């Protein structure tokens, strides 16, 4: 069994605290993705689980053991590093088999495990090359192979795809997901790419400045962000945010225009709120996919378009601020054209204007 539990875990570099008392429970076999902007402490957290970074406070448990003071080799984990960290002086075969050789397994067993891993990752033709003679994607697969030959209880991935080109990244993403379905081991995966997070995770952990902001399934964090940070961080394009005040069941924006308040909120007149709407929920009439019963219509001027093929992103001005909207079954739109947009109010969010925290339904 390999659950991972973080209990009030703190990391300090001298007096500088970079991870602030985080708590996280990861179930056996779960694929958890840590995501957040650069410098938020994702790698640090992962490295504390791995044992590469000392824990300044709290407990890390793997299975039933508190591992705070165990060296990495006693934690039964394996890790894929951002820049692969292959051993340059060993062939691919030796790289893959190194951990088994170190633990003094018999040679036949090592050969078998290496061949198996090479098979899974299509590395068989490359087994006798040195890492220097491999492409980035191939190195990445070797790094992954090195992690899987040991059948560890927990896999740790630190931005393993960030050095690959977009196409390869998509491909490897699928491979990793398949691998997880096959091996069924616990995975903690760090990325700052929210698409990677959404597509891979059973649960997403969103971090900011050394704090965990929200933990939930991809859909959950997408649809119910706990604050404006999560709302803008998860989902592409980011959620549109507009500041306004509540007035007679409407939201009044700075320029005086109003929109009906989303249903289900307990609001009082004069309350300062931030209105959040994703591009998917603001679409031109006739090119929309109406969702929910409460729909408001607004007429907006389009400033810029980004055709993406199946849909077009429209940049328009709403209440003095630029918002992004989507157009399904797109037709060519000229800059400056005025269109009537439908806003799916059931899918809009209200946050406290001051703290950014979601006003709960």
């Amino acid at each position, binding site marked *: 069994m390999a659950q991972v539990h973080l209990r009030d875990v703190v990391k300090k570099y001298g007096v500088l605290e970079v991870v602030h008392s985080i708590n996280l429970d990861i179930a056996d076999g779960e694929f958890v993705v840590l995501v957040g902007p650069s410098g938020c402490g994702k790698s640090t957290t992962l490295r504390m689980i791995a044992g590469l970074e000392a824990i300044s406070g709290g407990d890390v448990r793997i299975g039933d053991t508190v591992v705070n003071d165990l*060296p990495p080799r006693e934690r039964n984990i394996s890790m894929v590093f951002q820049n692969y960290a292959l051993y340059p002086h060993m062939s691919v075969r030796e790289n893959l088999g190194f951990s088994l050789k170190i633990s003094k397994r018999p040679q036949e067993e090592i050969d078998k495990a290496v061949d198996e891993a090479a098979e899974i990752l299509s590395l068989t033709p490359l087994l006798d090359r040195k890492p220097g003679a491999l492409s980035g994607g191939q190195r990445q697969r070797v790094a992954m192979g090195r992690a899987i030959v040991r059948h560890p209880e927990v896999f740790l991935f630190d931005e393993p795809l960030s050095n690959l080109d977009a196409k390869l990244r998509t491909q490897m993403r699928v491979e990793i997901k398949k691998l997880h379905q096959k091996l069924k081991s616990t995975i903690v995966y760090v990325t700052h790419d929210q698409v990677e997070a959404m597509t891979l995770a059973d649960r997403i952990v969103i971090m900011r400045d050394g704090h965990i902001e929200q933990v939930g399934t991809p859909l959950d964090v997408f649809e119910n962000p706990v604050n404006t940070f999560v709302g803008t961080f998860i989902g592409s394009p980011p959620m549109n945010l507009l500041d306004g005040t509540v007035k007679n069941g409407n939201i009044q924006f700075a320029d005086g225009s109003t929109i009906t308040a989303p249903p289900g909120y307990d609001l009082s007149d004069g309350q300062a709120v931030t209105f959040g709407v994703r591009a998917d929920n603001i679409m031109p009439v006739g090119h929309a996919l109406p969702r929910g019963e409460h729909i408001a219509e607004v007429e907006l001027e389009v400033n810029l378009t980004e055709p993406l093929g199946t849909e077009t992103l429209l940049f328009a001005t709403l209440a003095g601020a630029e918002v992004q909207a989507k157009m399904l079954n797109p037709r060519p739109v000229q800059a400056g054209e005025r269109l009537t947009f439908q806003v799916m109010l059931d899918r809009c969010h209200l946050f406290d204007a001051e703290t950014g925290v979601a006003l709960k339904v």
Partner: protein
Amino acid sequence: MKRLKLPQWLVLLMPAIIILSAVVLIPLLLSLYSSFTSYRLTRPDSLFNWVGLFNYEKAVTDVKFWAAFGRTVLLLAVALNLEMLFGLGLALMISKVTRGQRALRTMMMFPMMFSPILVGFQFKFIFNDNVGLVNNALQSLGITDTAIPWLVDGNLAMFSIIFAEVWTSTSVFGILILAGLYAIPRDPLEAAKVDGCTPFQSFRFVTLPFLMPFIYIAMAIRSLDVARAYDIVQIMTNGGPARRTELLWTLIGRTGYVDARMGYANAMGYVSIFLAIFFTIYFFKKLTAARKELGMGV
């Protein structure tokens, strides 16, 4: 008027060519030529007495020459290996120190800052059988009550010389290996930790392969150094007792300047140079192989 027109590149290279010929090429050719003559410093006209390969034949059949040759190889093998081990140990320890690392690094270099002649005198004093530091210490501690003839007994004298040589030059290995340690990427070491390596295994399988090129560079430098070892030995034992610490260049020096047989000395010199060339090529081959192993070019 028609002047001789030299190509421009030749004109530009002329100063370098002239200086190099004056200080390197001509002496070199002269010494090579003299090794085929019976040239004696005391009889300048003997420079023109051509004897063909006589000096070379004499050298390669001379037992004293081969004894000195063997001793030089022995010194080289023992001193280099000891220096490598000590240098590695020093470098590893210094790289682990978190405070005062700079000061330690500088201190490690101290022995290199002394002239080998002074080091020779110093160790001649330290190992002196009557007034020397070592014997005094041993006697005061009651470990021995006789004076140990450090520089007089043949084997002990060789040991003392090796000791002095290692003392002065361990820091060459130390500093180069330390540079190697600083250059090792952190990632493979962390990967090794996660892969289950104990600290010793990380060292054996990851750190050491990364250090090998640095070790071979140090070996190449030091093998040239030791192959021409002269000053320390000359001061400490003067090749004695009874030529028991005679090295190639003390022998050559003695033959050329004391016995004044310059032609013969030059012939021995040319034979000895092969030793240096051999070791240089050997260690550079090793270096290239070690770099290739790490995927660092060819």
